[in-house]
């Protein structure tokens, strides 16, 4: 039952061409240690799904600089000038999504929802290439689910079952990403004994979580 595993075992998960989802928002609440492991793994040709592309030196931004990401689905890249350059030079294929649409697409991927109808982006470039569906005379865009081969999550606390508790705005995309990975790997500031979390304080039930990176 205990899902805690060593760093080496996490590193071995990453392969060229994978889709990797990463929690966090504007360099807060990102799984920094797992990103370290991903960078060290050297896996290339990655599709990254995350809220933003971080700073060049920090968090998700490292995957721009390292050249490991070749496709990126996110809502914001403004903190990372290297992303602009990589996109301009054709090294990264960037797909921008409205932030709430991105969140809902990830949730859909995890929740067995085949698509959601949203009004966000109607009449903007977001429409391009998307199906429009009318319900009761109102027009919506059909937004499709997102899943990942591996999802990387940062939590405040984890128990050995994979139950997670987040803190403050570091929660952000982490609980969504935790639902949508075929393999979900967590780093937690603290790994607590099974039974020490109240069932009602748990934000992410352990069923979604496959592995927890051991703390040193």
């Amino acid at each position: 039952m205990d899902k805690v595993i060593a760093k080496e075992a996490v590193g071995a998960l990453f392969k060229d061409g994978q889709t990797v989802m990463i929690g966090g928002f504007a360099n807060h609440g990102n799984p920094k240690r797992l990103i370290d492991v991903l960078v060290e793994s050297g896996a290339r040709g990655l599709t990254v799904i995350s809220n933003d592309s971080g700073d060049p030196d920090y968090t998700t931004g490292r995957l721009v600089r390292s050249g490991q990401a070749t496709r990126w689905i996110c809502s914001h890249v403004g903190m990372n000038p290297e992303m602009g350059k990589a996109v301009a030079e054709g090294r990264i294929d960037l797909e921008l999504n409205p932030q709430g649409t991105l969140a809902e697409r990830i949730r859909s991927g995890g929740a067995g929802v085949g698509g959601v109808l949203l009004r966000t982006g109607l009449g903007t470039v977001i429409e391009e290439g998307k199906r429009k569906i009318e319900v009761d005379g109102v027009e919506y865009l059909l937004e499709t689910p997102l899943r990942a081969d591996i999802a990387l999550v940062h939590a405040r606390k984890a128990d050995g079952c994979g139950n997670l508790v987040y803190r403050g705005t570091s929660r952000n995309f982490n609980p969504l990403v935790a639902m949508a990975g075929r393999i979900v790997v967590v780093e937690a500031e603290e790994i607590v004994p099974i039974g020490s979390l109240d069932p009602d304080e748990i934000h992410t039930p352990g069923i979604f979580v496959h592995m927890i990176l051991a703390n040193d």
Partner: protein
Amino acid sequence: MSDTKETIARIVARFFKPGDVVNLGIGLPTLVANYIEDGVRLHTENGLIGYGQTPPAGQEDDDFTGAGAQYISVLPGAASFDSGTSFAIVRGGHLAATVLGALEVDELGNLANWSLPGKLVGMGGAMDLVTGAKRVVVVTEHCNKKGEPKILERCTLPLTGARVVTNIVTELCVLDVTADGLVVHAMAKGLSREELQAKTAARLIFPGSIEEIAETA
């Protein structure tokens, strides 16, 4: 009779390994809980993973009940959540299995277990469970109280799900639902192939090697 049900429950419990999360339906499926290995965890669709036995008298808590409104105990590592998350778990393919009873089940893997003529009940979470769980295990006594087969060529009652069942377990056999039809995986000791086929209203496929239920259980 009770032995029959316990046999079925014991067979099904062996399908699951530690780390699996399973949803057990009301009735016969509930008995499976008595035989699962430590580390197999149970999901109840009203919003909890990690429940255990019925609590001792006097320790019942109205805030911890199962989908059948029965009191449950809460094991270490349990997590509670709302109905939206509960069915995100179900539909999203996160359950290793659901174990459900049947009124009828057929060789295509169709299941009918929610609607009988003249009785208004509702499907509850059964349709979601059969659509989402990785493995859909139907447990049922092989024949109904009149001695008629419950395993059919085609269900006649309103379906819970179309082509969703992966395994059928009765006191007489364990069947795998495959693209070719119902493959006999295990049979009760001493039962002949002809006897089993005679009690089943769908064509059974008997492969070269068939386990004995006595050994399986």
